[in-house]
C-alpha cells in the first residue's frame, strides 16, 4: 500500500475542529467587518444601514480636532520610534557586550516598562513631569504637558521593546565576524557600520515597527501626559466614544486599521525583498 496513512483524529473530530476554528475566526473578525461596513453607512444612525457613502470619511477629515489628533499621533510615533530605536539598540549592544558597573541592575530594570501596567506607568510619568517642571521652572523657563511630554513618554516605554527585540538578534550574533572585520583593517566604527549593523538590522527594523505600532496604539499613557492641543488620535477616539459611537469614529477606526495593515504588509515586503537577496532575514 502506498499513499498517506491517516493518523490520529477521526473524521468527526476533524469536522468539529474545523467548525471551532471558523467560530474563533468569526469572533475575531466579524466586529472588524461590521466596523468597516458601517463606516460606509450613509445613515447617521450607527446601527441602521442607509446605503453606501464616503460621507463620514469626508466629515472626519474636515474636522479640525481629528486632523490635529492625527498629526499629533504621527509626529509622536515617528519621533519616539526613531529615538527609541537608536537608544534601545545602543542599550542592547551595551548589555550584550560590555561589562560595566551597574550592568546587572540595568539589565533587570530596562525591561520594567514592559511588565508594569500602563496605568502605573502613566501615573509615574505624570508625577515625574510635575516634579521635573517644578524643578526646571525654578530656573525660569516654563514647561507644560504637551506633545513633547507625550513623545518622551512613548520613548520611555519603546526603548524597552526595541531593546528586547534587538538583544534576541544579538544573541545569535557571531562575534568572530567583528574580529574578522577588524583583522581586515576596519576601524571600530566601520566594523559596526559594515558588519554588525547589517546583520542585526532585521532585529532593529522589527523593534522599530513594534515601537511605531505601540506608539500609534497607546491610550492610557498618552491620555495622562498630553496637554491641551496635544491629543493623540486614540485618546480623541476614546474620549469621544463616551458621547456615543458615531459613524465618524467608524471611519477613523477604519483609517487606522488600513494604516496598520499597510505597515505590516510593508514590513513583510521589505523582509521578503531582503530574503531574496540573502539569507540573514528571518525576523528574529
Amino acid at each position: 500500500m502506498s499513499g498517506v496513512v491517516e493518523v490520529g483524529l477521526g473524521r468527526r473530530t476533524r469536522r468539529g475542529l474545523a467548525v471551532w476554528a471558523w467560530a474563533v475566526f468569526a469572533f475575531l473578525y466579524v466586529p472588524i467587518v461590521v466596523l468597516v461596513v458601517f463606516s460606509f453607512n450613509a445613515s447617521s444612525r450607527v446601527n441602521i444601514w442607509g446605503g453606501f457613502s464616503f460621507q463620514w470619511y469626508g466629515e472626519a477629515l474636515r474636522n479640525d480636532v481629528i486632523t490635529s489628533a492625527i498629526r499629533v499621533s504621527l509626529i509622536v510615533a515617528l519621533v519616539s520610534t526613531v529615538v527609541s530605536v537608536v537608544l534601545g539598540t545602543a542599550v542592547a549592544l551595551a548589555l550584550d557586550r560590555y561589562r560595566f558597573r551597574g550592568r546587572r541592575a540595568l539589565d533587570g530594570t530596562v525591561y520594567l516598562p514592559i511588565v508594569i501596567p500602563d496605568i502605573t506607568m502613566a501615573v509615574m510619568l505624570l508625577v515625574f513631569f510635575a516634579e521635573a517642571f517644578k524643578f526646571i521652572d525654578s530656573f525660569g523657563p516654563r514647561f507644560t504637558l504637551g506633545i513633547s511630554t507625550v513623545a518622551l513618554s512613548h520613548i520611555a516605554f519603546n526603548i524597552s521593546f526595541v531593546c528586547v527585540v534587538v538583544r534576541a538578534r544579538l544573541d545569535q550574533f557571531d562575534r568572530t565576524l567583528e574580529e574578522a572585520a577588524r583583522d581586515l583593517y576596519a576601524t571600530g566604527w566601520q566594523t559596526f557600520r559594515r558588519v554588525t549593523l547589517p546583520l542585526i538590522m532585521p532585529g532593529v527594523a522589527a523593534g522599530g515597527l513594534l515601537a511605531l505600532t505601540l506608539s500609534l496604539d497607546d491610550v492610557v499613557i498618552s491620555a495622562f501626559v498630553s496637554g491641551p492641543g496635544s491629543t493623540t488620535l486614540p485618546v480623541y477616539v476614546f474620549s469621544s466614544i463616551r458621547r456615543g459611537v458615531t459613524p465618524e469614529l467608524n471611519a477613523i477606526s477604519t483609517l487606522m486599521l488600513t494604516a496598520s495593515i499597510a505597515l505590516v504588509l510593508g514590513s513583510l515586503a521589505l523582509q521578503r525583498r531582503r530574503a531574496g537577496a540573502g539569507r540573514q532575514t528571518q525576523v528574529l
Partner: protein
Amino acid sequence: MTEPVAAVEIEGVTKRFDDVVAVDNVDLAIDDGEFFALLGPSGCGKTTTLRMIAGLDLPTQGSLRIFGEEVGMAPPDRRPVNTVFQAYALFPHMTVRQNIEFGLRMRRVKDPELSQRVAEAIGMVRLAGMEERRPDQLSGGQQQRVALARALVNQPKVLLLDEPLGALDLKLRQEMQQELKALQREVGITFVFVTHDQEEALAMSERIGVMSEGRLLQVGSPREIYERPSSRFVADFIGRTNLIEATVESSGTVRLANGVVIEAETSAPAGSDVAVSLRPERIRVQSRGAGVSAGASLDGEVGDVTYLGHAVVYAVTAGPTLVEVRNEGEVGEPFAVGDEVTVSWDHGAAAVIAE
C-alpha cells in the same frame, strides 16, 4: 651584513585572562617566508599566541615585533597581517566578491587596482564563477578558499591561520594541505598556522613550535621534533613513542630501568635521571636467539598483537617496561601472544630526554 629581520618576533610575551595564564613568557622568532606551525592540545595557548600576533588579544606583558616593528599594543587594523579564522568567519550578508574586497575597500584601494587584485585572488584559489554567491551557497572547501582569498588579497606580510582545516572532512583536508603548501610557495609570504593535529603539522610546516600549558616547549623542524624531542610531553604528543626511565652512565651510554646499558647520545651529566624515547616503528622484533645485528636489544615476551593491515603492533613486556613495536611492510613471521622475543634498535633510534 645585517642579520635578516624575523617576520614575527615574540619576546617574553605573557597573556593572562583574569587569573588564568594562557601564554607564559614565550620567546619565538619566525623567519621571513617560513611555513610555521604552532602545535599543541586544546587550551595550550597556541590560539591566544596567534590572536596576539593578529592584535585580537593584547599581551599582558612582553614585546611583539613584525618585521622589526613593535606592534604588541597596536589594534588589528594597524598590523600588516591577516587571519584565516577557524570557522572562516565569512560575512554572511556579502557575496564572495564583497567578502574578498572588504580589506581593500577598508584601505581605500580604488578601481582598477581593486578589481584586478580581487580577480587575481579569486583565480589563485580557483573560485572563478562563484563571485556573486553568498557564503551559505558554498561548500566547506569553497568557504575555506574564500577565507584564504579574503586574507591574501591584502598582501599581508604574515598570514595567520587558526586551525584552517579543522572543519573539513579527512579527504578534503589532505587535499587542502597540499594546496596550502603550494599556495604558500607561490605567494612566498610567512604562514603561521595553529593546529592540534600533529600529523598535519609534520606534513605541512618547515618548523613547528610545540606548546603546552601556555609554554613553548620546543621549536624545530618536523624531523628534529620527531626524532629529538626535548621533553617527555613533546615525545609523547608527536606520534607514538616508548618512554623508558633510565640513568646516565657516561656521556655515551645510559642504563635502562631494567639494568640494560645502551648507547645513546646525551649531554646530561652522569648519574642524572633521564627518559629514553624509542619510536615503535624504529624497533625490530625477532625470535629470541636470532642474531641481533647491531645496536641495543631487550628480551621480552609478546603481550598483545594488533593487526592494522599495513602494520602489526606488538606490545612486548621486557622486564618492568612495556615496549610497543610497530612492524610495517614486510612483516616476516608473525608472532603470537606469549612468544619469547627480542626487540632491538639501531643506536641512532634512541633519543635521550633530559629531565
